[in-house]
């Protein structure tokens, strides 16, 4: 029993959620187990239920049916709410609307203050968190002077300082420009690789899902696909039918295969494509 709580810090069991005044479930009998240290992308178009699912993962919403277990704790248990939220940290979409304090360093401290962490322990945890997202130099800055990507990294540091087991990124790159998106994705990917942070990355950007260990596609509140990015993005037509895109190289590789070129499945980016093409074609020069 204890073991599953460690190996699967996040377990979702037959969960449904229905908003008041809505006839249909926004999340409809979804089950998934998120393995420790994995980077899981949850994809879906607007209204597919992906943001609702995110909010079920740390007790911001409570399931109308089924159970969500964070490190073995049922999110519906009232006494555990703060514990659940400490273990499952969440970064939201709008960088402006989640920073509370007037100075970066103090914002990172916000969660620690709420948890009642002794004052003497705070500075080291804040510095460590800021270091992890390369924001040490901005510790004294005012949030409104930062770029979108920097603000999101501050928000990540604020969650990290609480030392969570799972980080839920609820469309945290949707409002950023390409360089800001890259910054945030790289920071989180690094945390995942170096500190085995478990990450649930909710997005509608295919390029971001392509770097995940596992991709779950939601549609109408249900799990439509679940597999490695290679498996999921090989199903070009199905993905497009769900109102999503596939990475351009995945699409091209399927087209080339259909035209008779012997390429393997699972090409997602330009460097893989070049590598595989070199195997079937030879340069004339």
């Amino acid at each position: 029993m204890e073991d599953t709580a460690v190996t699967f810090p996040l377990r979702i069991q037959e969960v449904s959620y229905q908003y008041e005044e809505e006839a249909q479930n926004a999340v409809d009998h979804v089950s998934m187990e998120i393995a420790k240290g994995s980077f899981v992308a949850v994809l879906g178009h607007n209204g597919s239920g992906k943001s609702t699912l995110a909010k079920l993962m740390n007790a911001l919403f409570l399931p109308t049916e089924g159970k969500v277990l964070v490190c073995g704790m049922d999110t519906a248990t009232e006494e555990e709410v703060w514990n659940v939220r400490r273990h499952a940290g969440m970064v939201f979409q709008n960088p402006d609307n989640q920073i509370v304090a007037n100075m970066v360093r103090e914002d990172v401290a916000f969660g620690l203050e709420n948890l009642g962490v002794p004052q003497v322990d705070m500075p080291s945890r804040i510095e460590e968190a800021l270091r992890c997202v390369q924001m040490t130099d901005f510790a004294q800055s005012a949030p409104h002077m930062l770029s979108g990507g920097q603000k999101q990294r501050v928000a990540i540091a604020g969650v990290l300082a609480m030392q969570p087991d799972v980080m839920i990124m609820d469309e945290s790159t949707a409002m950023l420009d390409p360089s800001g998106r890259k910054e945030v994705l790289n920071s989180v990917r690094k945390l995942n690789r170096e500190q085995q942070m478990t990450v649930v990355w909710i997005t509608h950007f295919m390029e971001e899902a392509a770097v995940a260990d596992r991709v779950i596609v939601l549609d109408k509140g249900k799990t439509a696909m679940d597999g490695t990015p290679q498996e999921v993005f090989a199903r070009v037509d199905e993905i497009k039918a769900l109102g999503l895109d596939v990475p351009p190289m995945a699409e091209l590789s399927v087209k080339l295969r259909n035209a008779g070129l012997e390429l393997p499945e699972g090409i997602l980016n330009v460097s893989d494509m070049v590598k595989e093409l070199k195997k079937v074609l030879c340069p004339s020069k």
Partner: protein
Amino acid sequence: MLRDITLGQYMPGSSPVHRLDPRTKILLTMVYIAMIFCVRSPIWYILPLLYLVLCVRLAGLTFQQLLKAIKPLRFLLILTFLLNLFFSSGTTIWFQWGILRISQEGVFTAIHFSMRLIFLVAGTSILTLTTSPIALCDGIEILLKPLNRLRFPSHELAMMMTIALRFIPTLIEEADKIMKAQMARGADFESGNLMKRAKAMVPLLVPLFVSAFRRAGDLAMAMEARCYHGGEGRTRLRVLRFGQLDLWATLITVGGLLLVIFTGVWFS
């Protein structure tokens, strides 16, 4: 760009006045106000003046900065002066025209009240010029804490002030953007009479309110996700401590107050 504006009038620095505990500064500002109200005759404003000069010097401020703080109040000042000058009752009449009359006592009161106003504003400006809004919030929260027993929400009040300070630049920037967007659709915010101008604000204010509510909702959720549950059991990153500097500042200020009271009693 609008986001470069500084909030309030805070001038960052590391002078002894800047380094004082914000609680000390707030309390001593009250002592200073008491000092001003204890001055009985215009001549004895010399004592608060000396005190102000000392503060300005120690804080590394300039008198131009103080004057700038007083400037918005110039109309109020002139009004105070004129009302007192013409409408004070007095026995030694120097000049009379209809109901307007200038008496010796009137001149005296006019100068007295104008001085009082100037000194009040100048002194409190030193507080806001040398204390960051964050430190002010902290100080106010802790000073109001004893009122918790009377169910006064001191933590909530301070949190509200912090969030307001945090979002003012964001909302100013947003207002600027919405205004431009409406101007691109031919809206005119500048011409017309008062009524017309007030009406012209609707296309700016409605989206601004909608956005502020949306931000408030988002922020509340983000705060909950980071385990915010009110002031109970909360620790703080910034801990305020009184130091030697605070002791000296208190001694000097209270000394000033006593001196002023003394002059009032002795020379009346």
